[in-house]
């Protein structure tokens, strides 16, 4: 039997007439890394804030069997999140942050956090204010990775960091934290950087979930063809969801069309997640 960490049924969030999240139903099983992808203001953060008990909502939502809007305190025993870079209290010393988490979190393993920090240049006696942006994120990641939670939510955790930190961040997340007993949810703009770690993906547009799929399946569904000159008409007949021109050649993107058939039209290749996202958002591939 599949164990679900999140079960949402008709989850909705409105601000007056504006629906930040249209009625959405979804389930997230244990042991997955889910990427939630959408443009700015699409409703990603709204959805995650509801899941984390940070805001009120309408509809049914159960996270690890808890009602997030009523039981945030209890929920946070099993759920952890980094909502943004730089939310660590700036006036605290690094060691005081660890003291505090150790004091309030029964599932925090300080020794583990220390071993993560020992590998970084984060000084223990310094205040968070005096740390660089990269060090702050390393500290925060060391804290959350030392909490034995079932669900970790990362909302734009690497915004504004340089590429080396971002790579390290996702590498250590995958290698040292993730296992089949945990689920990680990530949102980010830098889709290319996370696509290799994702097992599942969800696209959100204008407050609506427009696609939910497993990564393996998704990347097989979308195929781009660089159409051989003269075959444009045939290409059009197969109903591409998006068309473009590269180096003077027509390129078409297809969804759920047999690859062998497409190979007759020209050179085929699989699409990256970012391209699939763009094609889905702009084309008729929904």
């Amino acid at each position, binding site marked *: 039997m599949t164990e679900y960490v999140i079960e949402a049924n008709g989850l909705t969030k409105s601000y007056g007439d504006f629906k930040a999240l249209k009625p959405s139903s979804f389930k997230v099983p244990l042991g997955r890394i889910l990427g939630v992808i959408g443009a700015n203001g699409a409703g990603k953060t709204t959805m995650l804030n509801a899941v984390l008990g940070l805001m009120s909502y309408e509809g049914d939502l159960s996270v690890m069997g808890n009602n997030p809007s009523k039981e945030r305190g209890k929920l946070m025993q099993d759920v952890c999140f980094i909502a943004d870079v730089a*939310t660590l209290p700036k006036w605290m010393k690094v060691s005081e942050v660890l003291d505090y988490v150790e004091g309030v979190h029964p599932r925090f393993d300080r020794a583990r956090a220390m071993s993560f920090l020992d590998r970084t240049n984060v000084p223990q006696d310094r205040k968070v204010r005096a740390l660089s942006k990269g060090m702050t994120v390393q500290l925060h990641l060391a804290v959350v990775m030392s909490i034995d939670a079932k669900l970790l939510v990362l909302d734009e955790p690497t915004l504004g960091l340089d590429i080396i930190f971002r790579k390290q961040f996702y590498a250590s997340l995958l290698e040292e934290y993730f296992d089949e007993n945990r689920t990680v949810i990530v949102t980010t703009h830098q889709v290319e950087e996370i696509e290799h770690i994702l097992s599942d993906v969800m696209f959100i547009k204008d407050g609506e979930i427009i696609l939910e799929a497993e990564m393996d399946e998704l990347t097989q569904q979308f195929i781009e063809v660089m159409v051989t000159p003269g075959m444009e008409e045939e290409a059009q007949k197969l109903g591409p969801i998006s068309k473009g021109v590269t180096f003077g050649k027509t390129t078409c993107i297809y969804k759920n069309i047999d690859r062998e058939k497409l190979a007759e039209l020209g050179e085929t290749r699989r699409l990256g997640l970012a391209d699939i996202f763009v094609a889905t958002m702009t084309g008729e591939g929904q």
Partner: protein
Amino acid sequence: MNTYVALIKREFLDGQNGYLRVPVILAALSIFLVVVSTIGFGETIEFDGVFDDYEIENLGDALTEAAASKRGDEELPAAITLSYWVMAGISWVALPFVVFFSLLSALYEERRDRSILFWKSMPVDDWQEVLAKFVTPVFLAPIIFLAIAIGSQIVVALFLSIVVLFQGGPVLELWPLASMIGTWIYFATLYMTMTLWVLPILAWVLFVSAYASRLPIMWALLPPAIIMAIEGILFETTTVLRWIGIQLGGWQTYAYRDLNADIDGPADFLALVFGGLQWEALTYSLGSTQFWIGLVIAAGFVFGAIELRKRAT
């Protein structure tokens, strides 16, 4: 239990400038003033007409003379106890400011610097957070201030003892322990009674810190001022102002109405304080409807602050 310790410790660390540094600096300053003036005693400070039949050259002489005087047995311990409070009591001036500004920033700063998102990622309920942020300045800060006041009184007494020891005076007279400890306890209990009266106003400040999106100090001060102005213009009354005045300490005028205020010397004053004030303050408060209404209002504002904290991101 661990959670509460961690929360209170965090609040203390966050506000340790106000909770610890300010009173310690003020206490050090007042001890310094005592030292300077003691060194000048008998040289620059003259006691015209006080000790006219005796040659007073230093503190030791003064103490010997005072102890031997007619009412010395009775008055000296009380006088010394009270003078310790005067000599080492400056820190208290800072306490209302520390409490006010701690409460004003309690639920405001965490939203401004977004650290609320970190606090909320921990398994701590919003009511626990809000209570920790209320209890620390309102109840813990006075305890720290009192401890520092007691500590500096002892330092002053030790210093004076050494001076008098060298000058050859009655050192033990400088340690009226019973009345010193008595005033500490008295002070703590009266202060708590006063705090309970001020509680609705303190809870209002906490509520504002949870509500204001910017300039919390304006939110804290303007609405009461506007209400008072409207009341004054429409009804030409001052009910709100009077209510605030009574909560802030005006209640004591009523509480001590029946006390015999015929004070002749420090011993009478201390006797009044121990025998009457404290008791009258407590019984008057417990029997006052306004006192209880104030507590209900305080609970309302704290509840409001918790509800706002739940929704804040």
